[in-house]
């Protein structure tokens, strides 16, 4: 079995975390990460980094900003509505 170096492990870290790897390579990487304390910490903290970002719910759009958006949209919807009516009339 090919012995993975730390450098190779780093190169494959993304796919290792994203689960897009062929099983044989994954097995080799797993073996490395279980035996190499450095890469284990690296992998573990990168995983936690992603988790912490994914756990953040987006905050609400400020009401004034949302009101402005909705007003602009309504204007556009009315314009579109009128255009359709005019076309139908013609």
């Amino acid at each position, binding site marked *: 079995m090919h012995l993975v170096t730390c*450098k190779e492990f*780093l*190169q494959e*870290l*993304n796919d290792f975390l*994203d689960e*897009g790897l062929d099983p044989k390579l994954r097995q080799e990487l797993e073996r490395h990460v279980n035996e190499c*304390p*450095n890469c284990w*910490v*690296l992998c*573990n*903290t*990168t995983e*936690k*980094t*992603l988790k*912490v*970002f*994914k*756990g*953040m719910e*987006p*905050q*609400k*759009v400020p009401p004034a*900003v*949302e009101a*402005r*958006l*909705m007003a*602009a*949209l309504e204007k*556009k*919807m009315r314009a*579109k509505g009128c255009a359709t009516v005019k076309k139908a009339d013609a």
Partner: protein
Amino acid sequence: MSTSTVSPGFDEAALVARAKAGDADAFSELVTQYDRRVFRMAKQITQNEEDAEDVLQETFLKAYSHLDDFQGNSRFYTWLVRIAVNEALMKLRKRRSDKTVPLDEPIDTGEDEMVREVAVWDENPEQKYSRDELAEILDQAVQSLKPAYRTVFVLRDIEELSIEETAEALNLSISAVKSRLLRARLQLREKLTRQFKRKGDDAFGYL
């Protein structure tokens, strides 16, 4: 389709179909479902509140005008993100006085400096902070990334597009997305490790 992480609890395709048929309420419902994600993404890419407000508005107005062009080949959300990214990048380029295209910045290839700090984290470090404090920490970390890395990270790891969708939205090759994503993830890991590492630990204190 019910397992989508981005749109839990509502039928996106049905809403889109109604909106396409001219149902204004259905489109408004799509806006309410996605406006906070679009706004967050716009803020992260432009790093400017005012620009983000414009991006939010332009994105939904364009989406509404071009709804007929949406063929349903991708998720509606992905389509929306693509519009928003283009708007946000335009704003970003406008703000940069030198007019260089940030996504074309050369990518450093030295790997040695990618990992400096190797230390275990506290158990659930995020629970030590209030929601706002944590948001601030994460925002600052994202802000510190170069636009070329930041954009890829925001799309892939925050908005949870696939690698392929990210590449398509940014007009990048798959391999460019992957290498930028790796750098972005490692740089953020580095920043958060400084914040979250177990106090008093040396590198292998957990052994």
